[in-house]
């Protein structure tokens, strides 16, 4: 009986949270004078209508999954990485530089080198924040945000200066972008004519590996312990400071790899705005996926759908694509509120008692004594001294 109540309770809270997020978005759409239902319908169904839409969703899923995996590792280790946006850009720059400046090598050698370079750059960039947190107790929330702005400027400087395509300076419009990467450093496309590339496979494989790492290895255990209870972990012989830096570096590596895959699989040259908000969307994807790889992959699909859907509503219904940020923000707020409510034992018991009372009324008071006893037992447990 209790587990049924539990399931009902979780369902009710989740439903309320979903409604709250949908409602917050609907208010904004109402202000625009658009019919929220029609807009939501376009966002959620239009991209699913053809192969092109589906592959484009998968293209968005690649960076979303990778960034979210990194964020899940960091959140579970007790450090909040909101600097993925900058880490992606550092990954893009390092991968592009490796691809452009390394001597010509066969694909089998160069492509892994390029991807590792991206991951490494992201890891180093993130480690700055991890180190500041572990050694000097600087809030990682603030340092990673600041590093985002710094990375954006660095990225812009490199693309406008040292790494700019010489052709742009001579004949082009001076668009800040690098030269096209050599073909050996490209990740191949899966379906001819579509942009979906094998980075998708890498992302899925890494999702499985992250699960194995976090739940099946001692290092993963150490990280999760450091996040769940730093004091207890320290007492158990886990070096919490090292864990913080390692978790941050891993998170950065995933974001950097996401950048490297974007540049080698999709754009094939470093361009402006390449991270296009994936750093923040990744946070939503990770939270929505319950900080677990098995949840992150479907959650990445959902938010990939939202991203493509928002682009389509911009074209079809002239609702600005910024709308996706509104929905993501609303989703974050409602998810974390719902999580706390679900964990609230007191509220759950009130809910269960309410259902019990209803049940008793419906059953005509037959089971009154039994139900009353169960209720009393629950109240007693709350009164127990810890």
């Amino acid at each position: 009986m209790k587990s049924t109540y539990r399931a009902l309770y979780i369902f009710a809270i989740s439903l309320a949270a979903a409604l709250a997020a949908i409602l917050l978005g609907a208010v904004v759409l109402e202000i625009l004078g658009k019919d929220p239902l029609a807009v939501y319908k376009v966002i959620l169904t239009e991209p699913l209508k053809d192969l092109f839409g589906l592959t484009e969703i998968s293209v968005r899923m690649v960076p979303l999954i990778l960034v979210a995996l990194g964020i899940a590792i960091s959140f579970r280790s007790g450090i909040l990485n909101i600097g993925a946006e900058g880490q992606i850009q550092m990954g893009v720059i390092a991968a592009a530089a490796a691809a452009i400046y390394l001597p010509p090598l066969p694909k089998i050698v160069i492509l892994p080198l390029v991807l590792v370079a991206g991951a490494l750059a992201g890891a180093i960039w993130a480690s700055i924040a991890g180190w500041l947190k572990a050694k000097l107790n600087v809030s990682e929330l603030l340092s990673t945000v600041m590093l985002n702005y710094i990375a954006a400027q660095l990225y812009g400087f490199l693309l406008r200066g040292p790494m700019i395509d010489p052709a742009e300076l001579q004949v082009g419009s001076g668009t800040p972008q690098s030269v096209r990467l050599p073909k050996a450093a490209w990740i191949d496309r899966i379906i001819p004519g579509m942009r979906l590339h094998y980075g998708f496979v890498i992302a899925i494989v890494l999702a499985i590996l992250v699960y194995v790492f976090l739940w099946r290895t001692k290092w993963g255990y150490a990280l999760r312990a450091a996040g769940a209870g730093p004091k207890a972990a320290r007492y158990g012989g886990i070096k919490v400071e090292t864990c913080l830096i390692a978790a941050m570096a891993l998170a950065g590596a995933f974001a950097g790899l996401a950048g490297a895959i974007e540049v080698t699989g999709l754009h094939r040259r470093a361009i402006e705005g390449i991270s296009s908000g994936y750093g923040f969307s990744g946070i939503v994807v990770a939270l929505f996926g319950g900080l677990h790889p098995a949840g992150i992959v479907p959650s990445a699909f959902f938010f990939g759908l939202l991203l493509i859907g928002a682009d389509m509503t911009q074209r079809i219904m002239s609702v600005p694509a910024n709308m996706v940020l509104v929905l993501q923000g609303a989703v974050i707020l409602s998810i974390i509120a719902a999580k706390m409510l679900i964990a609230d034992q007191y509220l759950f018991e009130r809910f269960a008692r309410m259902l019990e009372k209803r049940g008793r009324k419906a059953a005509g008071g037959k089971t009154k004594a039994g139900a009353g006893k169960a209720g009393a037992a629950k109240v007693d447990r709350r009164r127990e001294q810890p």
Partner: protein
Amino acid sequence: MNILTFVVNVLSIGIPFSVALLLASTGEMFNQRAGVFNLGCEGIMSMGAFLAFMPAHLLQNTSLAPYANLIGIAAAIAIGALFGLLFALVTVTFRAPQGIAGIGLHMFGWGVAGTLFRYFVGGVTGVPGLKNLPIPLLSRIPIIGPLLFNLNGLAYAAFILVPASWYILFKTPWGLKVRAVGTYPRAADTMGVNVSRTRYQALVAGGMLAGLAGAYLSLGQAKMFADDIVAGRGFIAVALVYFGRWNPYLILGGSLLFSVAQSFQLAIQVLGIRFPYEFAVMLPYVLVIVVLALTPGSVTRGPAELGKPFDREKRV
């Protein structure tokens, strides 16, 4: 160019620059003194900047034009209060983790402002903005006059707010309550202080100031609106609260330091000393990290319960 005119130049840009930071971080100080870390300040500022801009943009050539700025400022304060209330609902009533909630609020506010702006306005358009109000006599003092007594109304208000918020925080019963619920909420609760209500009040007050800071950005400083007008100032304002050790006067000092550093790099570029402007733009953000790293003691001296939700039912 002689040194005095250079310094005056730097200050004449730097002092007005500091107002938005000052307003936002004073608001954030009230939040944090009450124990709530509001990283959504940036998003509230976006909304405030947008709503302050809109009346000035829409009423430009109507008979209501003289009141447009006032309407805009009122709207910015109102939306700040509303967002503060939303944040309080999530973090105080539902006790959600504050860091993530702040990111959510930031994305929401930033997204709403961007969506509405792109839909109703589209491109960058200027507005007349706030006029400077020179104070008679005082503004005619050489050097100091033009620097300090020829600002717009919001700037004066922000500077008056510094001693005012010091007084409110340290000399009024409400200020005592705010500090108590941020330091030792259980004791405050035992003494009959309503912890949730006080945190709600502090978050609403902080949100209003963040909204006002946004209004200053669009009406007083940039005299236009763009999606990314806030450009991290909300996050810098949060960092300034740490730097200013939760004290209004030190926060004023921090805001001035940051904005003067910024106007200094602008002035150097104007002088013709060439270096990539990206590094100049980077400067304030680097400065934040350096400053946070160099003031490790500030973390231990902050409100003891900063970032921790208060659960009245929880046993200790």
